[in-house]
């Protein structure tokens, strides 16, 4: 009771630095999970992922290519529940439920390929521009500006169009469009962090440019890139499905956008199910990653950390 409020001695050791990191991570996790909408997003993502992983156990895989819709010409245009088709069938006798389950795999592939590749390419190009500066920066950023001048979907549509209709080409087209976002984020981060005091301090201590980059700049840039990547996981599936819907995938592939397109023909005759369910999946997928991305952004916001 009587001890005066003297400042207590704080000693920092490597050990405590590590535990600080762990504590910070736990605090982040706590902040994430305290937000109900983020939890909803995580639950949906969890369900989607398990659907993708356990697809062969949920439905019998189509032979030889499970990503191709099985056609049961004896059960065309069946409403949900009839003839054992849980969510009905399409005009061409495709099982909507099968399409949804295997479509989650297609979507997962699309988002992982696109986000993974663009994150790497964008990060590298953005870092080079930011670190080297000068004319390299100037040229790279002008290219980025040109790419950003064309609306996302229209650009992807144009690329996919000249490459020819196939799901792989959609992945390529999206990758060519999306990478600029990461290049931009990364360059801004590098420039911003380059000006911070601790990088100056590192320079005075005599660290090489590359070391400074790896040790100080890269870890700090993780936050905005992660948030963007999370949002893009949903976003690219949305655009990809739109391209498929327009008709830039192979017909008959188990992909949600293709299924919506296939079901569209039947709505005049009251066959609502073939479009509704696959579209709902696209919506839920994008929604889940948007919720998680928003939650991440809030949780990682340094302004909120002290509260």
């Amino acid at each position, binding site marked *: *009771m009587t001890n*005066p*409020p003297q400042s207590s001695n704080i000693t920092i050791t490597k050990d405590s630095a590590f535990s600080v990191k762990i504590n910070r991570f736990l605090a982040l996790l706590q902040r994430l999970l305290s937000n109900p909408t983020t939890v909803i997003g995580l639950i949906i993502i969890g369900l989607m992922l398990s659907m993708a992983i356990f697809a062969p156990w949920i439905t019998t895989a189509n032979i030889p290519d499970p990503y191709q819709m099985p056609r049961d010409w004896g059960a065309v245009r069946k409403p949900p529940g009839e003839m054992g088709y849980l969510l009905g069938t399409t005009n061409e006798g495709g099982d909507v439920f099968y399409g949804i389950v295997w479509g989650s795999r297609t979507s997962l592939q699309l988002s992982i390929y696109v986000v993974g590749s663009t994150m790497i390419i964008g990060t590298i190009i953005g870092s080079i521009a930011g670190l080297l500066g000068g004319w390299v920066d100037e040229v790279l950023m002008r290219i980025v500006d040109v790419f950003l001048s064309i609306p996302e979907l229209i650009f992807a549509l144009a690329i996919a169009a000249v490459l020819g209709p196939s799901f792989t080409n959609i992945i390529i087209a999206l990758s060519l469009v999306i990478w600029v976002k990461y290049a931009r984020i990364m360059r801004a981060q590098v420039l911003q962090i380059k000006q911070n005091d601790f990088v100056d301090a590192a320079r005075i201590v005599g660290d090489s440019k590359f070391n400074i980059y790896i040790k100080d700049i890269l870890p700090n840039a993780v936050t905005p890139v992660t948030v963007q990547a999370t949002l893009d996981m949903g976003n690219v599936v949305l655009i990809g499905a739109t391209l498929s819907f327009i008709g830039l995938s192979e017909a008959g592939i188990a992909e949600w956008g293709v299924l919506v397109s296939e079901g569209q023909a039947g709505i005049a005759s009251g066959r609502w199910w073939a479009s509704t369910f696959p579209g709902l999946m696209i919506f839920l997928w994008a929604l889940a990653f948007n919720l998680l991305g928003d939650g991440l952004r809030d949780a990682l916001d340094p302004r909120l950390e002290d*509260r």
Partner: protein
Amino acid sequence: MPNNQFENNVLAKVKDLKVHFNSKRGVVHAVDGVDFEILNGETLGLVGETGCGKSVTGRSFLRLLPIPPGIIKGGAVNFKANLVCTRCSGRGCSECGKSGHKTEKGEQVDLLKISDTRMREIRGDRIAMIFQDPGKALNPTLTVGAQMAEVFLQHRSLEILDMAGLGQIKNKAILRFAKQDVKLFDKILLLLPKARKQKLKVQEAVKIMVSKALSETQVPNPLKLLDRFPHELSGGMRQRVMIAQALACNPDLLIADEPTTALDVTVEARILELIRELQLKRKTSVLYISHDLSLVRRICDRVAVMYAGRIVEIGKAEEIFANPSHPYTRGLMAAVPSNGIPRGSLSAIKGTVPELIDPPDSCRFSGRCPYEVNGCRVNDPKLRKITESHSVACFINDASLSWCAPSFEEERV
């Protein structure tokens, strides 16, 4: 004091005011039982460090508190507005007599309990406020004229209509326009040629009132100022606009929340002078909130020292500066540079302001106090009078205070 009524010379009385804030770490007792009075026509200085609750206390008069997270936990802010002639706002007219003086007292109200509508009638009319940073307190997207017009339209619409020669007008749309309560349908009605002419007349009258109010703050070319945006003015000019706006309706009480902190020292003196002059002319009471003791000494009649959500000492300015009786007040004074004190002998009070989350029932200054005695950490000192006009919340009386050697010089600045 029978029936809780004021003495005649009292304008407002704060009783046991408690304002708390909910935060994630607990309840912050920002203002925790504050008592004081504001007398008619006086300047009361409210002094203290950042975060001691002085701004919150000041804003309580206008109920401008962020609620939630804030909660008014208890107490009362009693206020007896002077009845003013609604036609001329006390400037003197045929109806209220040429004196223009505020003679009769109005009813006494508790500002914390009255309805929102009643509160809005008082805001800007009977109680006005000047903010710390005039650059932030003026809307960047509205012209000076438009912002100042709002006060007049809000509280003096009858006078404006009189001035515009529309005193007997029956047109509801124009009436609502003069009260800034234009409904969607009125906008269409106001497009009619006759209404438009009347509308212009009203705007002209407002313009005259605004430029008159501005000229009182010694602004050169007030008419030219009306169409300017705040960012086109200097800091001093902006604060003059704020002052003109605050004193527009001749309020009984002016809350001045560090009005010169954001300004240059050279401008500061002139602004202070201006406030003082206008205040004396209009017999307005001023609650002057500041962290600057030397400034308060210059302009205040009485001074209240706040520490950690409480008032620890209050009294006439001369008394407080001649005989500071709370250890905290003494510490504050020792930290103020003034002529005659050699460099280097300025001192800071050791330690920091305690956190106001669930504070203990003890003297808030214990732990930092150089005069601390055993009782200080167990009991909570109440304000008690040491002279008729000077009260202190401390266990040690002033005799023993001067007896003890002050030890503020421990930490040199």
